[in-house]
Protein backbone atom coordinates (compact mmCIF):
# COMPACT_ATOMS: atom_id res chain seq x y z
CA UNK A 1 0.00 0.00 0.00
CA UNK A 2 2.84 2.36 0.73
CA UNK A 3 4.22 2.10 -2.80
CA UNK A 4 0.81 2.74 -4.30
CA UNK A 5 0.40 5.81 -2.14
CA UNK A 6 3.74 7.21 -3.20
CA UNK A 7 2.99 6.53 -6.86
CA UNK A 8 -0.38 8.22 -6.82
CA UNK A 9 0.95 11.22 -4.93
CA UNK A 10 3.81 11.55 -7.41
CA UNK A 11 1.31 11.56 -10.25
CA UNK A 12 -0.54 14.37 -8.54
CA UNK A 13 2.72 16.21 -8.09
CA UNK A 14 3.44 15.90 -11.78
CA UNK A 15 -0.06 17.20 -12.52
CA UNK A 16 0.58 20.18 -10.28
CA UNK A 17 3.85 20.88 -12.11
CA UNK A 18 2.01 20.83 -15.42
CA UNK A 19 -0.48 23.31 -13.98
CA UNK A 20 2.42 25.56 -12.98
CA UNK A 21 3.79 25.38 -16.48
CA UNK A 22 0.41 26.07 -18.06
CA UNK A 23 -0.16 29.18 -16.04
CA UNK A 24 3.32 30.48 -16.79
CA UNK A 25 2.45 30.43 -20.49
CA UNK A 26 -0.13 33.17 -20.09
CA UNK A 27 1.50 36.55 -19.40
CA UNK A 28 -1.08 38.61 -17.56
CA UNK A 29 -0.69 42.39 -17.76
CA UNK A 30 -0.60 42.56 -13.98
CA UNK A 31 2.46 43.54 -12.00
CA UNK A 32 5.39 41.16 -11.85
CA UNK A 33 3.94 37.87 -12.79
CA UNK A 34 0.78 37.40 -10.85
CA UNK A 35 -0.24 33.85 -11.17
CA UNK A 36 -3.76 32.52 -11.30
CA UNK A 37 -2.85 29.69 -8.97
CA UNK A 38 -3.87 26.67 -10.99
CA UNK A 39 -1.70 24.20 -9.03
CA UNK A 40 -3.87 24.98 -6.04
CA UNK A 41 -6.59 22.84 -7.60
CA UNK A 42 -4.45 19.78 -6.96
CA UNK A 43 -3.29 20.95 -3.54
CA UNK A 44 -6.81 21.72 -2.36
CA UNK A 45 -7.98 18.35 -3.65
CA UNK A 46 -5.26 16.52 -1.76
CA UNK A 47 -5.79 18.58 1.36
CA UNK A 48 -9.54 18.03 1.51
CA UNK A 49 -9.74 14.49 0.34
CA UNK A 50 -6.50 12.71 1.17
CA UNK A 51 -4.76 14.37 4.06
CA UNK A 52 -2.71 17.20 5.46
CA UNK A 53 0.71 15.51 5.40
CA UNK A 54 0.23 14.50 1.78
CA UNK A 55 -0.77 18.04 0.81
CA UNK A 56 2.33 19.49 2.44
CA UNK A 57 4.55 16.91 0.75
CA UNK A 58 3.12 17.39 -2.74
CA UNK A 59 3.11 21.18 -2.46
CA UNK A 60 6.72 21.45 -1.31
CA UNK A 61 8.00 18.93 -3.83
CA UNK A 62 6.11 20.73 -6.57
CA UNK A 63 7.60 24.11 -5.63
CA UNK A 64 11.15 22.79 -5.44
CA UNK A 65 10.95 20.86 -8.69
CA UNK A 66 9.33 23.69 -10.63
CA UNK A 67 11.97 26.19 -9.56
CA UNK A 68 14.75 23.73 -10.30
CA UNK A 69 13.40 22.98 -13.75
CA UNK A 70 11.90 26.25 -14.91
CA UNK A 71 13.30 28.95 -12.68
CA UNK A 72 16.26 29.96 -10.60
CA UNK A 73 17.20 30.15 -6.94
CA UNK A 74 15.36 33.43 -6.50
CA UNK A 75 12.10 32.07 -7.88
CA UNK A 76 12.46 29.18 -5.42
CA UNK A 77 12.44 31.60 -2.49
CA UNK A 78 9.38 33.43 -3.77
CA UNK A 79 7.38 30.32 -4.58
CA UNK A 80 8.39 28.67 -1.32
CA UNK A 81 7.27 31.68 0.70
CA UNK A 82 3.95 31.80 -1.10
CA UNK A 83 3.41 28.07 -0.80
CA UNK A 84 4.28 27.91 2.93
CA UNK A 85 2.01 30.79 3.84
CA UNK A 86 -0.82 29.47 1.74
CA UNK A 87 -0.43 25.90 3.04
CA UNK A 88 -0.41 27.08 6.68
CA UNK A 89 -3.58 29.10 6.31
CA UNK A 90 -5.32 26.41 4.29
CA UNK A 91 -4.51 23.76 6.89
CA UNK A 92 -5.77 25.96 9.70
CA UNK A 93 -9.02 26.61 7.85
CA UNK A 94 -9.52 22.96 7.01
CA UNK A 95 -9.08 22.00 10.65
CA UNK A 96 -11.64 24.56 11.75
CA UNK A 97 -14.21 22.65 9.66
CA UNK A 98 -16.34 25.74 9.21
CA UNK A 99 -15.37 26.46 5.64
CA UNK A 100 -15.76 24.55 2.41
CA UNK A 101 -13.21 23.92 -0.32
CA UNK A 102 -13.99 27.23 -1.98
CA UNK A 103 -13.25 29.22 1.15
CA UNK A 104 -10.05 27.29 1.74
CA UNK A 105 -8.79 27.85 -1.77
CA UNK A 106 -9.66 31.57 -1.70
CA UNK A 107 -7.55 31.98 1.41
CA UNK A 108 -4.85 29.84 -0.21
CA UNK A 109 -4.72 31.98 -3.33
CA UNK A 110 -4.60 35.29 -1.48
CA UNK A 111 -2.03 33.97 0.98
CA UNK A 112 0.15 32.77 -1.88
CA UNK A 113 0.17 36.23 -3.42
CA UNK A 114 0.71 37.87 -0.05
CA UNK A 115 3.68 35.62 0.70
CA UNK A 116 5.28 36.49 -2.62
CA UNK A 117 4.77 40.22 -2.05
CA UNK A 118 6.27 40.05 1.42
CA UNK A 119 9.36 38.29 0.13
CA UNK A 120 9.58 40.76 -2.76
CA UNK A 121 9.48 43.66 -0.29
CA UNK A 122 12.26 42.10 1.77
CA UNK A 123 14.47 41.25 -1.19
CA UNK A 124 14.01 44.58 -2.91
CA UNK A 125 14.25 46.40 0.41
CA UNK A 126 11.36 48.65 -0.52
CA UNK A 127 7.90 48.54 0.99
CA UNK A 128 6.40 50.27 -1.97
CA UNK A 129 5.70 47.01 -3.75
CA UNK A 130 2.85 46.42 -1.31
CA UNK A 131 1.02 49.15 -3.25
CA UNK A 132 -0.08 46.32 -5.52
CA UNK A 133 -1.52 44.21 -2.71
CA UNK A 134 -5.20 45.20 -3.26
CA UNK A 135 -5.10 44.21 -6.92
CA UNK A 136 -3.34 40.97 -6.07
CA UNK A 137 -5.87 40.28 -3.33
CA UNK A 138 -8.81 40.76 -5.66
CA UNK A 139 -7.32 38.60 -8.38
CA UNK A 140 -6.41 36.06 -5.70
CA UNK A 141 -10.02 35.96 -4.52
CA UNK A 142 -11.42 35.53 -8.03
CA UNK A 143 -8.85 32.88 -8.87
CA UNK A 144 -9.45 31.22 -5.50
CA UNK A 145 -13.17 30.91 -6.13
CA UNK A 146 -12.61 29.37 -9.56
CA UNK A 147 -9.92 27.04 -8.25
CA UNK A 148 -12.16 26.09 -5.34
CA UNK A 149 -15.06 25.22 -7.60
CA UNK A 150 -12.84 23.11 -9.82
CA UNK A 151 -11.24 21.44 -6.82
CA UNK A 152 -14.72 20.70 -5.50
CA UNK A 153 -15.66 19.01 -8.77
CA UNK A 154 -12.51 16.94 -8.58
CA UNK A 155 -13.23 15.85 -5.02
CA UNK A 156 -16.72 14.73 -5.92
CA UNK A 157 -16.02 13.05 -9.21
CA UNK A 158 -12.59 11.55 -8.73
CA UNK A 159 -12.66 7.75 -8.29
CA UNK A 160 -11.44 6.44 -5.00
CA UNK A 161 -7.80 5.59 -5.49
CA UNK A 162 -6.18 6.08 -2.14
Amino acid sequence: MKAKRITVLSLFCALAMIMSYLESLVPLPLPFGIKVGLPNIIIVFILCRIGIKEAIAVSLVRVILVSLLFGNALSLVYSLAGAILSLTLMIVLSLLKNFSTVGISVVGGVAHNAGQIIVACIVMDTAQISYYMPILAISGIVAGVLVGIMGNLLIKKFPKII
Partner: protein
Amino acid sequence: MCIKYSMKLNKINRNDIILIAVLLCISLVALLIFSLTKTEGGYAVVVIDGTEVATYPLNQDTEVKLTYQNDFNLLVIKDGAAKIKDASCPDKLCVHQGEVMYNGESLVCLPNKISVKIVSDAESNIDIIS
Protein backbone atom coordinates in the same frame (compact mmCIF):
# COMPACT_ATOMS: atom_id res chain seq x y z
CA MET B 1 -12.87 8.53 7.87
CA CYS B 2 -11.36 10.55 5.07
CA ILE B 3 -14.40 10.47 2.81
CA LYS B 4 -16.81 11.54 5.53
CA TYR B 5 -14.49 14.38 6.46
CA SER B 6 -14.26 15.65 2.94
CA MET B 7 -17.93 15.40 2.03
CA LYS B 8 -18.86 17.86 4.71
CA LEU B 9 -16.54 20.42 3.22
CA ASN B 10 -18.14 20.35 -0.17
CA LYS B 11 -20.97 22.81 -0.21
CA ILE B 12 -20.36 26.52 -0.22
CA ASN B 13 -21.72 27.69 3.08
CA ARG B 14 -22.38 30.98 4.75
CA ASN B 15 -18.93 31.18 6.33
CA ASP B 16 -17.32 31.11 2.92
CA ILE B 17 -19.46 33.96 1.65
CA ILE B 18 -18.66 36.02 4.73
CA LEU B 19 -14.94 35.34 4.32
CA ILE B 20 -14.93 36.26 0.65
CA ALA B 21 -17.05 39.35 1.28
CA VAL B 22 -14.76 40.58 4.06
CA LEU B 23 -11.62 40.05 1.98
CA LEU B 24 -13.21 41.74 -1.03
CA CYS B 25 -14.34 44.73 1.02
CA ILE B 26 -10.90 45.25 2.54
CA SER B 27 -9.24 45.02 -0.87
CA LEU B 28 -11.75 47.31 -2.58
CA VAL B 29 -11.48 49.91 0.16
CA ALA B 30 -7.70 49.80 -0.02
CA LEU B 31 -7.86 50.04 -3.82
CA LEU B 32 -10.18 53.04 -3.59
CA ILE B 33 -7.94 54.79 -1.11
CA PHE B 34 -4.93 54.18 -3.31
CA SER B 35 -6.58 55.45 -6.47
CA LEU B 36 -8.15 58.49 -4.86
CA THR B 37 -4.88 59.63 -3.34
CA LYS B 38 -2.94 59.10 -6.52
CA THR B 39 -0.67 61.97 -7.34
CA GLU B 40 1.39 62.36 -10.42
CA GLY B 41 4.91 61.23 -9.86
CA GLY B 42 7.88 63.48 -9.55
CA TYR B 43 10.91 61.28 -9.68
CA ALA B 44 11.81 57.75 -10.61
CA VAL B 45 14.15 56.18 -8.05
CA VAL B 46 16.14 53.21 -9.21
CA VAL B 47 16.88 50.62 -6.54
CA ILE B 48 19.28 47.81 -7.40
CA ASP B 49 19.68 44.97 -4.89
CA GLY B 50 18.48 47.09 -2.00
CA THR B 51 20.50 50.24 -2.53
CA GLU B 52 19.23 53.38 -4.18
CA VAL B 53 21.37 53.95 -7.20
CA ALA B 54 19.96 56.87 -9.16
CA THR B 55 17.09 59.28 -9.42
CA TYR B 56 15.61 60.63 -12.59
CA PRO B 57 13.00 63.38 -12.79
CA LEU B 58 9.94 62.29 -14.69
CA ASN B 59 9.59 65.53 -16.57
CA GLN B 60 12.83 65.03 -18.49
CA ASP B 61 12.84 62.48 -21.24
CA THR B 62 15.68 60.06 -20.63
CA GLU B 63 16.74 56.68 -21.75
CA VAL B 64 19.17 54.86 -19.50
CA LYS B 65 20.54 51.37 -19.33
CA LEU B 66 20.52 49.96 -15.80
CA THR B 67 23.08 47.24 -15.32
CA TYR B 68 23.64 44.84 -12.47
CA GLN B 69 26.31 42.17 -12.79
CA ASN B 70 25.51 40.63 -16.14
CA ASP B 71 21.94 41.81 -16.51
CA PHE B 72 20.45 44.99 -17.83
CA ASN B 73 17.13 46.77 -17.96
CA LEU B 74 16.47 49.60 -20.38
CA LEU B 75 14.57 52.34 -18.59
CA VAL B 76 12.77 54.90 -20.73
CA ILE B 77 11.24 58.07 -19.32
CA LYS B 78 9.00 59.85 -21.76
CA ASP B 79 6.04 62.24 -21.39
CA GLY B 80 6.08 62.01 -17.64
CA ALA B 81 5.89 58.24 -17.46
CA ALA B 82 8.48 55.52 -16.98
CA LYS B 83 8.59 52.11 -18.52
CA ILE B 84 11.08 49.34 -19.11
CA LYS B 85 11.62 48.88 -22.80
CA ASP B 86 13.93 45.92 -22.81
CA ALA B 87 15.57 43.63 -20.33
CA SER B 88 17.89 40.68 -20.10
CA CYS B 89 15.67 38.64 -17.83
CA PRO B 90 14.17 35.49 -19.34
CA ASP B 91 10.51 36.20 -18.71
CA LYS B 92 10.46 39.94 -19.55
CA LEU B 93 7.59 40.50 -17.17
CA CYS B 94 9.00 43.93 -16.40
CA VAL B 95 8.63 44.95 -20.04
CA HIS B 96 5.01 43.78 -20.00
CA GLN B 97 4.26 45.86 -16.93
CA GLY B 98 3.75 48.93 -19.04
CA GLU B 99 3.99 52.50 -17.91
CA VAL B 100 3.96 53.92 -14.44
CA MET B 101 3.53 57.58 -13.63
CA TYR B 102 1.82 57.91 -10.25
CA ASN B 103 3.45 58.09 -6.86
CA GLY B 104 3.66 54.69 -5.27
CA GLU B 105 3.74 52.75 -8.51
CA SER B 106 6.83 50.81 -9.40
CA LEU B 107 8.40 48.75 -12.11
CA VAL B 108 9.97 45.61 -10.81
CA CYS B 109 12.31 43.12 -12.39
CA LEU B 110 12.68 40.40 -9.79
CA PRO B 111 15.27 38.26 -11.57
CA ASN B 112 17.56 41.23 -12.14
CA LYS B 113 16.92 42.63 -8.65
CA ILE B 114 16.12 46.01 -10.16
CA SER B 115 13.15 48.12 -9.17
CA VAL B 116 12.13 51.61 -10.24
CA LYS B 117 9.75 53.36 -7.88
CA ILE B 118 7.94 56.63 -8.41
CA VAL B 119 8.23 59.10 -5.54
CA SER B 120 7.01 62.63 -5.16
CA ASP B 121 10.32 64.23 -4.40
CA ALA B 122 13.86 63.05 -4.08
CA GLU B 123 14.96 62.31 -0.55
CA SER B 124 18.28 63.54 0.67
CA ASN B 125 19.84 60.18 1.36
CA ILE B 126 20.53 59.38 -2.26
CA ASP B 127 24.15 59.19 -3.23
CA ILE B 128 24.04 59.70 -6.95
CA ILE B 129 21.69 62.02 -8.74
CA SER B 130 22.12 62.02 -12.48
